[in-house]
C-alpha cells in the first residue's frame, strides 16, 4: 500500500495504477483515482462497456472519488479480490470498497458491481459519474430513469445503476452522476447491475450488502485453502488470487490477461488481445496451481484444454477462446489506444501459427496431472499418445516460436527443446497412463531432437544455447532448458546459458526476451516472466541465495496491490503490456516454489 495522489497523462492513468476485481466471469480494472476504466460484459472476452483504458475520450468509465483533491491508499481486503481504496482529503477520509459480487443471497443480477462508500473521519464530498459506452466505445446510450434506477441499454445489453445515500443523480445525455457528502460513520452505496439477453434485475440494498459480505467470505475461504509456507507468501497468494480472477468459471479456461492492446512499448504497435487461453501456459499453470493445492482449478483447466483441443486434434492451436472455441479472428478497432498506442486489436491472429513448443507444454501438463492424481481417462490417454506421435513428424519444421514472432519461421531452439519434452513426457506417461505402442518411435525421435539441439543450437563461442539453429543470439526462453529437464539445471550448458542471457539481455533484475528481429516494428520493455524464470533457473542450479536476492528485487516491482503486467520499462519502471498478466504471476509462483524446494 502506498500513499500518493493519483495522476493521469492526457487522460490515461499509468498501467501500474490499476487494480483488478472479478467474479470468475469478467474483470474490472480500477485506477487509483477511483475510475473503473475497463469492464467487458457479460464476460471477460465480451465487448467493453467501460473502455477508457483504450480511449480516454470515447471509451466510457465509472468514476467514484472525492470531488476535490485527495491522497490515496489501496489494498485488497486480506485474502480477497475485493478492493479497498481510502481517499484522504483536507476535510476527512472515506473508504470505497469495490467488488464484483458472486451470486448468492436473493435474486442476483446477471453481473453486479458494487461500490460502497464509508466515512472514516470528517465530512468528505464525493462525486460519481457513470459514463457507459457499449461495444468498445461505439455506442453512447441514452440513459433513462426507471423505478429506482438509471438504465442504459443497447441491443441485448442493459446496465442499471442503483444508488443509496449517494446523492440525487442527474442525467446529462449519455452520462449520469451525482455528488454527496459522507460523514464519519456514514455510508453510501452505488451498484451497477447488468443484464444480457434478459430483463435487468434491480437489487435491493440489503441483498447487495449480504452478497458483498458473502463474496469476501468466499475469497477468504478460498485463499485459506491454498497451501504455501515459503517466503514471499503474500506475493504468492496474491498471484494465486490473480490466477483465480483470470479463470473463466463457466469453462475452467484461464485467460492470459484481463485486457487487450495495452502496449508493449509506449505509443507502439505491439498491442495484442490477451483475453484468450494459451496452450503455452498450460504446464506453468498446472505446476503453479498444484503447488498451491489448487487441484480443482488445475484439473478443470486441463479438462478444458483437452476438450478445446479436441476440435483441432491432433494438432493444437496456439490459443483458444475462453469457451473453448477456435474463432479468434484478429481485427482493429477505431479507438485512440492507450496513450495513443494504435492499433487497438481484438481477436488474436497468433491462434493458427505453428508453434511447436505447445506440444511439450500440453504433455508436461498431462504428466503433472497424472503425478498428482495417478490416472488419466482412456480417451484422453489415447489422444495424448496421438499428439506425441504427431510431434515426431512435426519437429523438423521451422516455426514461429514461443514468442509468436511475425517474421519468417525458424528452427527455434526452445521449440525443439519442448518437442523433446513432449516425447520425454509421453514415454513417462506410457508407463501407466497412455498407450505406449509408439514408444520406440518417440524414444528414437527424442534422441534425434536432443542431438539436433546439442549440435546445432549450441554456441561454443558464447558457451550458451542460442535462439535458433545457426543463430548467434540468445533468448530468455532458454532459461527453461534446465527447468524443463532438457539439460542438467546445474550443468555446464545450463549455467553457460544463464550467464550468456544475463550478459546480453539483462537490465538490472530485468530481462528482455531477445534482441533480434521479430518481424514487428518498434521496441518493447523487459519481459517480467523471464526474470522469474531466471530465479527458477538459479534456484534449480543450486544458487539459492542469488535466486532469493533476485526474487526480493522482483517482488518489490509489483504495484501497490501486488499486481504485475506483462512487461516493465527498465529505465522508468513503468508497467507495459496487458494487465494483470497471468504468465507473470504464474512465473512468480513457480519461482518462489523452486526456491522453497531448493532451500528445503
Amino acid at each position, binding site marked *: 500500500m502506498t500513499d500518493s495522489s493519483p495522476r493521469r497523462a492526457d487522460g490515461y492513468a499509468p498501467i501500474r495504477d490499476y487494480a483488478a476485481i472479478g467474479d470468475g466471469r469478467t474483470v474490472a480494472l480500477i485506477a487509483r483515482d477511483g475510475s473503473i476504466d475497463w469492464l467487458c460484459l457479460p464476460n471477460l472476452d465480451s465487448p467493453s462497456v467501460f473502455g477508457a483504458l483504450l480511449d480516454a475520450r470515447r471509451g466510457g468509465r465509472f468514476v467514484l472519488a472525492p470531488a476535490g483533491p485527495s491522497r490515496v491508499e489501496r489494498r485488497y481486503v486480506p485474502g480477497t479480490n475485493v478492493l479497498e481504496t481510502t481517499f484522504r482529503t483536507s476535510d476527512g477520509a472515506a473508504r470505497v470498497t469495490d467488488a464484483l459480487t458472486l451470486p448468492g443471497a436473493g*435474486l442476483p443480477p446477471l453481473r453486479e458491481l458494487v461500490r460502497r462508500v464509508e466515512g472514516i473521519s470528517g465530512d468528505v464530498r464525493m462525486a460519481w459519474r457513470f459514463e457507459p459506452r457499449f461495444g468498445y466505445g461505439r455506442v453512447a446510450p441514452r440513459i433513462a430513469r*426507471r*423505478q429506482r434506477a438509471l438504465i442504459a441499454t443497447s*441491443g441485448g445489453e442493459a446496465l442499471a445503476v442503483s444508488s443509496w445515500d449517494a446523492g440525487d443523480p442527474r442525467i446529462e445525455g449519455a452520462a449520469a452522476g451525482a455528488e454527496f457528502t459522507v460523514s464519519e460513520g456514514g455510508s453510501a452505496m452505488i451498484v451497477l447491475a447488468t443484464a444480457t439477453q434478459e*430483463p435487468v434485475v*434491480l437489487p435491493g440494498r440489503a441483498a447487495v450488502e449480504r452478497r458483498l459480505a458473502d463474496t469476501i467470505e468466499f475469497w477468504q475461504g478460498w485463499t485459506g485453502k491454498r497451501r504455501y509456507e515459503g517466503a514471499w507468501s503474500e506475493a504468492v497468494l496474491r498471484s494465486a488470487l490473480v490466477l483465480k480472477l483470470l479463470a473463466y468459471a463457466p469453462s475452467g479456461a484461464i485467460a492470459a490477461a484481463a485486457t487487450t492492446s495495452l502496449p508493449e512499448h509506449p505509443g507502439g504497435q505491439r498491442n495484442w488481445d490477451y483475453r484468450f487461453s494459451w496452450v503455452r501456459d498450460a504446464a506453468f499453470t498446472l505446476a503453479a496451481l498444484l503447488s498451491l493445492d489448487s487441484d480443482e482449478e488445475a484439473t478443470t483447466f486441463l479438462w478444458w484444454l483437452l476438450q478445446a483441443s479436441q476440435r483441432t486434434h491432433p494438432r493444437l492451436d496456439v490459443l483458444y477462446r475462453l469457451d473453448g472455441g477456435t474463432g479468434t479472428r484478429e481485427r482493429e478497432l477505431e479507438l485512440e489506444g492507450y496513450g495513443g498506442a494504435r492499433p487497438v486489436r481484438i481477436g488474436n491472429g497468433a491462434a493458427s501459427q505453428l508453434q511447436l513448443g505447445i506440444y511439450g507444454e500440453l504433455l508436461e501438463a498431462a504428466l503433472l496431472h497424472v503425478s498428482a492424481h495417478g490416472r488419466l481417462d482412456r480417451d484422453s490417454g489415447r489422444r495424448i499418445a496421438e499428439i506425441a506421435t504427431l510431434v515426431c513428424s512435426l519437429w523438423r519444421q521451422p516455426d514461429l516460436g514461443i514468442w509468436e514472432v511475425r517474421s519468417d519461421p525458424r528452427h527455434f531452439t526452445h521449440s525443439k527443446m519442448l518437442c523433446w519434452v513432449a516425447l520425454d513426457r509421453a514415454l513417462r506417461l506410457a508407463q501407466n497412463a497412455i498407450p505406449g505402442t509408439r514408444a520406440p518411435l518417440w524414444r528414437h525421435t527424442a534422441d534425434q531432437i536432443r542431438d539436433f539441439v546439442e549440435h546445432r543450437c549450441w554456441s561454443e563461442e558464447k558457451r550458451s544455447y542460442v535462439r535458433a539453429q545457426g543463430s548467434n543470439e540468445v533468448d530468455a526462453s532458454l532459461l527453461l532448458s534446465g527447468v524443463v529437464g532438457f539439460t542438467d539445471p546445474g550443468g555446464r550448458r545450463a549455467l553457460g546459458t544463464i550467464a550468456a542471457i544475463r550478459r546480453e539481455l539483462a537490465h538490472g533484475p530485468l530481462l528482455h526476451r531477445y534482441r533480434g528481429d521479430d518481424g514487428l516494428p518498434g521496441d518493447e520493455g523487459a519481459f517480467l516472466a523471464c526474470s522469474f524464470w531466471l530465479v527458477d533457473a538459479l534456484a534449480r542450479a543450486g544458487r539459492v541465495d542469488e535466486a532469493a536476492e533476485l526474487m526480493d528485487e522482483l517482488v518489490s516491482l509489483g504495484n501497490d496491490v501486488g499486481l504485475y503486467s506483462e512487461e516493465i520499462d527498465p529505465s522508468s519502471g513503468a508497467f507495459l503490456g496487458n494487465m494483470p498478466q497471468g504468465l507473470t504471476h504464474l512465473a512468480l509462483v513457480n519461482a518462489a516454489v523452486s526456491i522453497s524446494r531448493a532451500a528445503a
Partner: protein
Amino acid sequence: MNLLAALAGGFVGTLVITTLLQLATELRLTRVDIPFLLGTAFTEERDEAKAVGYAIYALAGVAFSVVYWAVFSALGQASWWLGLLFGLLHGLFLGAVVMNILLPAVHPRMGSSSSAANDGSLIEPPGFMMLNYGAQTPAVSLVAHAAYGAIVGWFIAAAG
C-alpha cells in the same frame, strides 16, 4: 373442430414461438425472456426460475390453443390466416395489458410504480408492449405470436 388437433397445434406453436423469441435475443434484437419472468415469480434461484418458467410457458402455450379452438368453434371456421390474425391480437393484448399491467401487479419480484426502498431485488418491468426490453421487442413479439396463431389455425383447419 378437433380439440386434439388444436392441442397438437398448440404444442408445435409453443416450440416455434419459444425458438423465435430465443433467436431474437441471440440476435440482440430484444432482452425479453418470458420463462425468466414467469419463473422468478416462484423462486429466486436463477437456473431454477428458468426451468420453472419454461415449464409454465409450455403448459400455457398448449392451454392457449384451447382458447383458440373455442374461438374458431364459435366462428364455425378455422384457417391459418385467421389464426395469424388471432395471434397478432394475442400478441397485442399480451404486450399492452398482460405484461404491462397485470404481471407487474402480481409478480412478487417485479418493479412497479408502488415499489419502495424496502423492497428486495426487483426485475425491470416490461413496460408498454415490452418496450423496456428493447425497441424491437413489440415487433419480435407480434411476429412470434402471429406464427403461433397461424400454426394452431392450420392444425385445426387441416383436421377439419
